């Protein structure tokens, strides 16, 4: 086995605000092999999108990557912009959440899909457009209804997301990052887009990093997951394994709070509706993260040692050679009832 495609070790994303500095994302250890599908789950403010933007080299100004961020053996942290341009779109491509705002409204969809190939592969306009046509067919937007000279405003949300996917796979990247690709879409359209992504990944063998807050989506689309909270990975392992024995109280809480869990539990026919298992409190803001376990304040199992140190990602068990780790001093043991 060769090197992993993506390797993060002790990676942090640092934000400097005036004189103070704060880590938006801390100490991420993550590996992704070719053809593998990784899901990153968390709520807003957990740092999941920043992790993706760090890989893409698209972090906002004032933010900086520290630690190791290796892509195919080369360290991307601090890479000059000119070198990054050769990666972005060519080796790593990203699908953004909002297809309404991520597409350029004044360029035709054909030109936007062909742009990557002309830029990275030096193809002529005719060749690139021929390829763009083939890509549009591939993502389910056939001619003549979906011509290359259509503009984004002439398409629906689902169709725009298909165009985004065509753009992302245009240069056959090794890694596809999808940041909440279906959050803005209706469920039936979401199902179509997930089917399409699934099919493309199977056919092209690209690796997928899927960022989402939807536990259903992550369960159906990925092999491995990493659950993030307040800038850290708090649980990671094989998707099935993590779902079956969620060890971290936050992972459990997140699942229990989702209406999915409520829908799974059969409702008694008697009086009254059961309440959802809400997690009390809110996510601490990055400037006020405590020096101990950042979930301790909201955790119903917290003990004295939880307020003294930050727990490391400890091994829980190993399932099919993939370690299942959780950052908790008192991991839960009982199975989660499916």
């Amino acid at each position, binding site marked *: 086995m060769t090197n992993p495609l993506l390797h993060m070790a002790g990676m942090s994303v640092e934000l400097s605000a005036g004189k103070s500095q704060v880590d938006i994302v801390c100490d991420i250890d993550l590996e992704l092999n070719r053809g593998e599908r990784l899901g990153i789950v968390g*709520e807003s403010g957990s740092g999941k999108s920043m992790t993706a933007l760090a890989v893409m080299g698209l972090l906002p100004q004032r933010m900086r990557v520290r630690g190791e961020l290796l892509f195919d053996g080369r360290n991307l942290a601090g890479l000059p912009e000119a070198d990054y341009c050769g990666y972005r779109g060519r080796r790593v491509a990203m699908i953004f959440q909002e297809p309404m705002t991520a597409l350029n409204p004044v360029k035709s969809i054909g030109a936007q899909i062909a742009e990557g190939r002309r830029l990275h592969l030096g193809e002529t306009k005719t060749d690139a457009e021929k390829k763009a046509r083939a890509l549009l067919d591939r993502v389910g937007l056939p001619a003549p209804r979906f011509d290359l000279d259509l503009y984004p405003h002439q398409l629906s949300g689902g169709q725009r997301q298909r165009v985004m996917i065509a753009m992302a796979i245009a240069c056959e990247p090794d890694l596809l990052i999808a940041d909440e690709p279906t959050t803005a879409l209706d*469920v039936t*359209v979401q199902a179509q887009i997930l*089917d399409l992504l699934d099919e493309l990944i199977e056919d092209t063998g690209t690796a997928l990093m899927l960022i989402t*807050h939807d536990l259903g989506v992550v369960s*159906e689309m990925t092999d491995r997951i990493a659950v993030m909270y307040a800038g850290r990975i708090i649980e990671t392992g094989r998707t099935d394994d993590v*779902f079956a024995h969620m060890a971290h109280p936050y992972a459990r809480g997140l699942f229990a*709070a989702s209406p999915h869990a409520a829908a799974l539990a059969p409702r008694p026919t008697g009086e009254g509706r059961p309440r959802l298992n809400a997690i009390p409190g809110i996510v601490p803001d990055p400037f006020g993260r405590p020096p101990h376990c950042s979930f301790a304040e909201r955790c119903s199992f917290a003990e004295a040692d939880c307020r003294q140190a930050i727990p490391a990602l400890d091994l829980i068990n190993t399932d099919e050679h993939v370690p299942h780790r959780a950052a908790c001093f008192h991991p839960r043991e009982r199975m989660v009832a499916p």
Partner: protein
Amino acid sequence: MTKTILKTTDLVREYDLPRPSIFSKQSRLRVLHGVSIELAAGQSLGIVGESGSGKSTLARAVMGLERPQSGEVNIAGKDIYALDRSGLREARKGFQAIFQDPYGSLDPRHTVRTIISEPIVSLERGTSTAERERRIAEVLEAVGLPLASADKYPHEFSGGQRQRIAIARALVTRPSLIVADEPVSALDVSIQAQVLNLMMDLQEKLGLSYLFISHDLGVVRAITDRVAVMHLGRIVEEGPTNEVFDNPRHPYTQALVAAVPKPFSGRRKRVRSDGPPQTPVHTATTAAGCAYAAVCPRRQEICLTRTPEAKPVTPAWSARCHFA
């Protein structure tokens, strides 16, 4: 039988489409094709459907914000579109709204006190300052915010707290009906659960009725007693929430329920479809036939020629399909 708080009968709402040229005939898009719903006091009715199904237009029609071309909206026994201005103002005390975006629906330049007291100021003129303060304190306590919040501005609150402020504003006139249009869609899962629990607690404590609009089937399942599924301006299935979601009868409801990704289901089972995915679109007029027929797996000859009527599955459950 319990009292009916909200009843709409055959609501039709059409919008004028832009004319291609000034000589062409005016064409119209029908967004609500005769929608009838009924909500009993103290109950909650969910409206689910995809974008463009007309669920928000229905909410606006119920709120008296969008006059339907025909049909009636009856709230607590009064046809709100037959009332005069002062009558409508009086009636508005009885129904209030909560909107989707807790960032956009609160004026950033007003304090929470001003925001919450606005319904009292505009609908209950002549309320004394002391009485107003008492009511503000009462609703802040009901939604679980400290009294000191009244002097703060919306930007000082998190998304979940802002939605609590929006709920407080809706409660301040002591309404009996709350129309909630995607109230938790903008919130994170753990916060969403907090707000939903609060809404359920308040409903039981104050005897509220909710018209709860959402595209999230899980959320609707958690909070509503009955659900109505909308598709292109028609209610295609209506019944008790659990039964409809466990055993949907209309092919559109079945497609919706099947499309929701579920944890523990393992890897996706893909349906490889031939050709482009099809989406039915709104029609300008009321053409004959079922609007879902274009994509329906159970389509027969009759679906293209006759518009299906609502067929009862049980006395409390109906589906608008020839084969339900």
